[in-house]
């Protein structure tokens, strides 16, 4: 007999509200229906009522984890409409903050995944590691969530103490190699909960148009930092980790390896940080009429902003945001088909979903 089990919108396994109706035969999930919109805030519409300073603060609040990525993408789009190019030091600082954000996001996800596996010690280890990254972000920006680093034509704050960040990177890398990666890849607890679970095949990943680590874990080597470099990424050397299995373990491995690559990028960016100005200055910003689009590789995958402006207006006439979870989440339906009911919380978490981003 087929029956439906609702998971969410408020559920211990969900950090944010969405609803997954699981159609089951016994303990096996045969299909799933996804429902979002519980956190819809109309941010795109609100953006049309904000001027070019206020809209940056507004879009920083689309997401509580990758807040910096949203302002970076928005500012890059607005720079195309104003003809402003950030100075080299600002471009490097944008890379530093973006990679620190990726580190804390990936380590946070690893902790949540560990919790859902029933591996509480690992959860505590990951969150302790994440605190080191958060301390650095707070030291640079004065804030732990909304860093307010980006502005049109550059950044608001300098990275004054690269040595401290380099020391944190050393400690993080050491702990990743010594503890996190070996435990996640070899322990029976992690392997039994992740290997062969929640598979998204290569073909289905293409069909669903998934992005970021979810795509790379299904054998798609797409990464905008490599394919369409922005900020100072064209001057960085790094690898794009790709796994072929498409299961929860592959998504976990991709993120673990990306943490190591982020450390590599951070070390280069901090070592080569050029001297110079942080922005193009405080001259009046003039927008030309038109539409500009910007894309960046957020921790969860590609973020795209399309910004339209009319010359002489203080407000944008349209801001459209396509977030990575919006692209990745429909794929959960295919990941949970045939899975055990008990594995579904971990499977849905394996895309590192963000419903604030999705709903906007």
């Amino acid at each position, binding site marked *: 007999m087929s029956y439906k089990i609702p998971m969410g919108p408020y559920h211990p396994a969900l950090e944010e509200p969405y609803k997954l109706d699981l159609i089951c035969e016994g303990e096996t999930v045969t299909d799933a229906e996804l429902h979002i919109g519980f956190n819809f805030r109309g941010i795109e519409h609100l953006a049309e009522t904000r001027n070019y300073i206020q809209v940056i603060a507004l879009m920083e609040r689309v997401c509580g984890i990758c807040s910096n990525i949203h302002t970076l993408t928005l500012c890059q789009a607005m720079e*195309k409409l104003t003809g402003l190019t950030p100075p080299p030091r600002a471009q490097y600082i944008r890379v530093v903050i973006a990679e620190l954000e990726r580190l804390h996001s990936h380590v946070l996800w690893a902790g949540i995944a560990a919790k859902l596996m029933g591996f509480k010690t690992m959860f505590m280890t990951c969150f302790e590691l994440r605190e080191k990254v958060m301390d650095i972000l707070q030291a640079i920006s004065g804030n732990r969530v909304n860093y307010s680093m980006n502005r049109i034509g550059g950044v608001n704050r300098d990275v004054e103490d690269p040595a401290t960040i380099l020391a944190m990177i050393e400690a993080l890398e050491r702990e990743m190699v010594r503890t996190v990666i070996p435990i996640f890849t070899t322990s029976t607890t992690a392997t039994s909960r992740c290997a062969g679970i929640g598979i998204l095949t290569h073909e289905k990943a293409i069909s669903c*148009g998934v992005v970021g680590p979810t795509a790379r874990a299904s054998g798609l080597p797409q990464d905008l930092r490599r394919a369409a470099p922005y900020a100072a990424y064209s001057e960085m050397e790094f690898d794009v980790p790709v796994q072929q299995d498409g299961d929860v373990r592959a998504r976990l491995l991709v993120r673990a390896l990306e943490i190591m690559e982020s450390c590599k990028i951070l070390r280069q960016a901090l070592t080569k940080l050029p001297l110079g100005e942080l922005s193009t200055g405080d001259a009046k910003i003039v927008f030309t009429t038109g539409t500009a689009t910007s894309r960046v590789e957020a921790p969860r995958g590609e973020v795209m902003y399309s910004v339209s402006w009319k010359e002489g207006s203080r407000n944008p006439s*349209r801001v459209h945001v396509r977030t990575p979870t919006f692209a990745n989440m429909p794929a959960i339906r295919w990941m949970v088909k045939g899975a055990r009911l008990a594995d579904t919380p971990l499977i849905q978490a394996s895309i590192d979903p963000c419903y604030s981003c999705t709903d906007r």
Partner: protein
Amino acid sequence: MNAVETKSEKSVLDSLPEKLGIADPWIEMGGVRWLNPGALSVRDLAKGMNAVGARFVTITAVQLPGEQGIRLEYHWDLDGQLLGFPYQLAGNTIESIYDLCEAVDWIEREIHEGFAVDFLGREYEPLLLRQGDKLGVNLREEKK
């Protein structure tokens, strides 16, 4: 606005307009290579993009001033290059490409709910972002 220069050796991107049957060249503007689809239907566009292995990114809906209606901008990625195809809607309807491109599902539903655009040939239920039965209340200016 600059017409994109043609390389001596035609890449997939360069030969795409010809494959799609479009005479206009690519126009690079604001980080996107735009191609005016002209009479090419959105379904034929989707088939063409699938054939060259492009990845669907999103559709941006823009409400134009006055009574000009809605413009939909279809975005695809080809080897890291963002491509844009604008469609001016007549009568607030356009054919759905959901059966050709699974990735378009949620954005078609969102635009249907936010801008009251009808994507012909598909079903919408359940609603994606909200409850209720009035379309076009999220992002589209309400007409009195």
